């Protein structure tokens, strides 16, 4: 590509007898340009409008169910058969009894919120320190070495491994081995941790890359060992970015369903322990959505609103941190 000397062009354009004027752009070319611009704006709207619909619909449907007690009540067991009984009673002229007609005040998803917190917390504890250490190897020790390049490549590939495969993996090494008792918040944390690990490694490495080498060199000039330079100089400098990247990974894990589906088991009551069956918001929504009754559906919308708020808040906070960082 030959470079164009702008000054030379400018001379031509400024010359009074020059033919180069804006009007040389023909109508046809101008219309085509306008159409292309409109198509680009259209593409943006095609993606944004469904997003708007999803958010509005979930909020509308969810707000009908959500009360203060909704977040703390235990999950009514077997909403599917309760719905079915009510249907049958309505059809044959009976009046649904109060215990079967689960009213709004009795609906709740408290245990699912606890389960989501536990599984994501467990996954974060497993994946974030390991991921940051991995990033330290890639950028502080490995850099251009063959092994480091290979690990970096495989990390990128691992971010593309479907989450359901992580679930199948933990199911086949953990649940098959320990039986049904193996299904627990901890097993779900393992699966979500596998999902988070490559995301944390890559985002942390990007952040380590932003730390200027002068800092490392200045520290080395003082005779400080590499590991102390890393823990006392480099990591603190990269901390906001690493926090933001880790929060995005946590948000992703909190919304994931497939890895949790076969590893967490089931629960209707609060289970604050990592041991024993539990329930997460995402898995709960999936199970209720697969049923058809009105009660199940109301629970699903309420849980969906809760989940979407949790995930979006995490995402927006992470983005705010990283944008603050990029301005500096």
């Amino acid at each position, binding site marked *: 590509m030959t*470079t*164009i000397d702008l000054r030379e062009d400018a001379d031509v354009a400024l010359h009074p007898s020059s033919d180069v004027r804006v009007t040389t752009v023909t109508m046809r*070319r101008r219309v*085509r*340009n306008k*159409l*292309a*611009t409109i198509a*680009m704006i259209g*593409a*943006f709207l095609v993606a*944004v409008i469904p*997003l708007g*619909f*999803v958010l509005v*619909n979930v909020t509308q449907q969810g707000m009908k169910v959500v009360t203060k007690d909704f977040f703390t009540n235990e999950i009514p067991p077997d909403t599917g058969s309760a719905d079915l009984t009510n249907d049958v009673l309505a059809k044959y002229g009976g009046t649904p009894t109060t215990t079967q007609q689960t009213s709004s005040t009795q609906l709740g998803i408290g245990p699912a919120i606890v389960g989501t917190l536990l599984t994501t917390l467990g996954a974060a504890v497993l994946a974030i320190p390991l991921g940051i*250490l991995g990033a*330290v*190897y890639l950028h*502080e*020790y490995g*850099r*251009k070495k063959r092994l480091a390049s290979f*690990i970096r490549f*495989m990390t*990128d*590939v691992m971010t*593309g491994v*479907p989450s*359901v*495969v*992580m*679930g*199948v*993996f933990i199911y*086949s*090494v953990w649940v098959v081995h320990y039986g049904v008792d193996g299904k627990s918040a901890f097993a779900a944390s393992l699966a979500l941790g*596998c999902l988070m*690990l490559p995301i944390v490694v890559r985002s942390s490495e990007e952040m380590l*890359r932003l730390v200027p*080498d*002068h800092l490392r*060199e200045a520290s*080395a000039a003082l005779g400080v*060992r*590499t590991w102390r*330079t890393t823990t006392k100089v480099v990591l603190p400098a990269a901390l906001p970015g690493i926090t933001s990247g880790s929060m995005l990974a946590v948000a992703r894990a*909190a*919304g994931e*369903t*497939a890895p949790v*589906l076969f590893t967490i088991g089931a629960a209707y009551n609060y289970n604050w322990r990592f041991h024993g069956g539990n329930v997460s918001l*995402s898995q709960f929504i*999936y199970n209720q*959505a697969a049923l058809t009754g009105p009660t199940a559906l109301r629970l699903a919308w309420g849980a969906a609103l809760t989940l*979407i708020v949790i*995930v*979006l808040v995490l*995402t*927006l906070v992470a983005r705010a941190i990283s944008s603050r960082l990029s301005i500096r």
Partner: protein
Amino acid sequence: MSAVSPQGLAERPAPSEIGSDLGGRGRGGRTDQAFRLLALLAGLSILAILALIAFSTIQKGWPAFSKLGTDYFFGTQWKPRSGQFGILPLVYGTFVVAAIAVVFAIPVSLGIAMFMTEVVPRRFRFGAITIVDLLAAVPSVVFGLWGIRILAPKLDHIFGNGFFRFLGDIPIVGNLFGDSSGRGFMTAGIVVALMITPIITSVTREVFATVPRNDKEGALALGATRWEMIRGVVLPHSSGGITGAVMLGLGRALGETIAVALLIGANPQISANLLGTGETIPAQIARQLSEANGLFRSALIGLGFVLFIITIAVNVTARRLVVVMDRRLKGA
């Protein structure tokens, strides 16, 4: 050692190599070695997990592989109740849904990426990027719930009321648009397209950002309109990267589980009707694995292995394309 080298950080040796005395021998050297080893082990854990995924899914899926053999990999009937485990209908469904999603997502993603890099004023850019990233943040299961309760009934109405009926009389094409219940390949594909649009957009955006400014300004200085500049400079320069971005989106689409499980109709069949029901590998796993036993369980875990291999292959190709493009730019 010069203060700042113009090549950028990646070209420089690691600080641990600059001061080799600080990386090993002498007082405190042992701690440093230990830290280095710890970091190395953390890095290797990635490789270990990938190897373990392959190993454990092969091991637990082996009964299905060995007992069923070619009936498993090339069988056209997936009927767990009668003990038939041929995975082809599931593989077919997986690729059909992914293909529909990619076909819808490519023009939209490219349009958005152009919109963001060339059209939107700089101060609105961050907001526009945030909005599209929010699309990526919405959990799959919420898309599934929305799709099954809001979108599917609407699509049933549209598909049923002859939106495609005028195509139905054309031979071959007509077979693609048959009867519909609102759930099926097309519904799942449309929702998955929404879910992969953000990833294709963000990678494409990064690719567009690497187009040299000189080339773009040169085209504009020669009198090209913005669209002519994009067609003549930006697109040819980014073709490799765009292919990589699309492959990454394809990888995501192949593995998308929960939304598809709710929208596909759970009917494993090889059918040309894009509006009809089907089943995909991840959806079948999600539906059945919790309750399965014996040979059925092995067959499902084996499906996990098949999906793992397919997505690894797609992702390796995609990453190669993106890396090759990277290297070409840095070499130039």
